[in-house]
């Protein structure tokens, strides 16, 4: 479903992704963990086409995402190609990034109306269903500032689902939340994974959740996957010394 084919991303002299190879199967749930600065966010941002990669190709659904076919070869994707491919992908951010001047409902309607071109009434109904799905049917007319962090993040999840993406990206979506609000957001993600055919990539520091929810865990270090494996196996018997040290540090921290 997703294939990072030797992807490199640099910021000046800093190589953030270093020839990354990663294949993700349809419907697979992949947890990405690793120390700060190891490139976890960059992976998601590259896939969401928020950042341009310097080398390699990202494939989505059998088609190049960052490039497009031209004759036998590939050239950099233009805006039109990116827009078409992006519709397969949704992303939820650490800091929610809700539109503060729109109600919860309007946040979810925006793409339905402006991208899919749905009539307003239909969009309203679909947005209402999305909010109901994340348990916020009664908050649809609230502005983000009047919602708790957990509720805002659930609105953001509903909004990201509006275009029915096949791939959902979650970047530390509970990191900005108080512990007691994490559970409601993780609950929504768990339910999503159960009820829908979604490929999911999530960057997380919630090892418990990664272990129980993910099919596979990728441990990033310096822009490469230092170790990966099925979630249980990975956490129960980490092989690399670096991995063991990281996991021990995270466990100690809480």
């Amino acid at each position: 479903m997703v294939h990072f084919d030797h992807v490199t991303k640099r910021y000046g002299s800093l190589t953030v992704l270093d020839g990354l190879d990663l294949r993700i199967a349809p419907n697979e749930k992949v947890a990405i963990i690793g120390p700060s600065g190891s490139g976890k966010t960059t992976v998601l941002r590259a896939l969401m086409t928020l950042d341009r990669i310097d080398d390699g190709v990202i494939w989505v659904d059998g088609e190049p995402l960052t490039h497009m076919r031209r004759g036998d070869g590939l050239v950099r994707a233009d805006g039109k190609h990116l827009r078409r491919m992006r519709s397969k992908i949704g992303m939820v951010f650490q800091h929610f990034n809700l539109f503060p001047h729109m109600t919860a409902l309007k946040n979810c309607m925006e793409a339905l109306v402006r991208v899919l071109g749905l009539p307003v009434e239909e969009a309203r109904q679909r947005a209402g269903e999305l909010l109901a799905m994340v348990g916020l049917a009664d908050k649809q007319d609230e502005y983000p500032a009047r919602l708790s962090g957990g509720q805002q993040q659930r609105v953001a999840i509903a909004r990201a689902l509006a275009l029915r993406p096949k791939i959902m990206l979650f970047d530390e979506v509970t990191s900005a939340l108080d512990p007691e609000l994490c559970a409601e957001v993780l609950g929504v993600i768990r339910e999503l994974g159960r009820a829908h055919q979604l490929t999911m990539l999530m960057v997380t520091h919630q090892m418990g959740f990664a272990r129980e929810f993910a099919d596979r865990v990728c441990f990033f270090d310096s822009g490469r996957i230092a170790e990966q494996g099925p979630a249980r196996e990975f956490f129960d018997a980490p092989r690399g010394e670096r991995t063991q040290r990281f996991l021990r540090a995270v466990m100690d921290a809480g």
Partner: protein
Amino acid sequence: MSESFWDWAYVWQVLPELVDASVVTVKATVSGFALALIIGLAFAIARMIGPGWLRQTTIGIVEVIRSTPLLIQLFLLYYVMPEFGLTLDAMTAGVLALGLHYGAYCSEVYRAGLEGVPKGQWEAAVALNLPPWVTMKRIILPQAIPPAVPALGNYLVALFKETPLLSVIAVLELMQTAKLLGSESFRYIEPITLVGLFFLFFSLVAAALVRALERRLGRGSGRVAR
């Protein structure tokens, strides 16, 4: 006519003409400022998301306009442009000069407003696949403009107070009318004082309107938290 310091009869005599002239002043202000708002926004957007060459050109134009006096720009538009085949009537030249000059200043205000919108808002819009223009119109501007309103309002009042400059290209606005009246009767004190009062009155009205607008924008939506 006794040579008193202040002649009420003369005041009543010139008042109608000055009222007519104040209409011209207000018209020049409103059209000039409307133009400034549009030009300023265009400059700010071009500078933010335009291609490199457009960005550089815009920065250059804004810099040149801001570093030269409005009076010079007025002269250029009215007296020099005809040499290049562009003849404008005085009012049009005046409005254009005001619009360009204050547009350059307004663009800086818009720019601060645009830059104040968190990057995450752009990124969320990309993730939702919103086209760039929709993003600008629906997501960014509604957040960028309200904080810019007070500063834009100040420029409205500033522009208004600079309209007497148009008298140098013979637009019959308040100042020019007062000068003509004065030169006919050799009494300047009444017309000029009246013009001052007009300006005071309209400035206060404009300031009150801007404040009301600020209050309206500040209320309602949950713009407080980001």
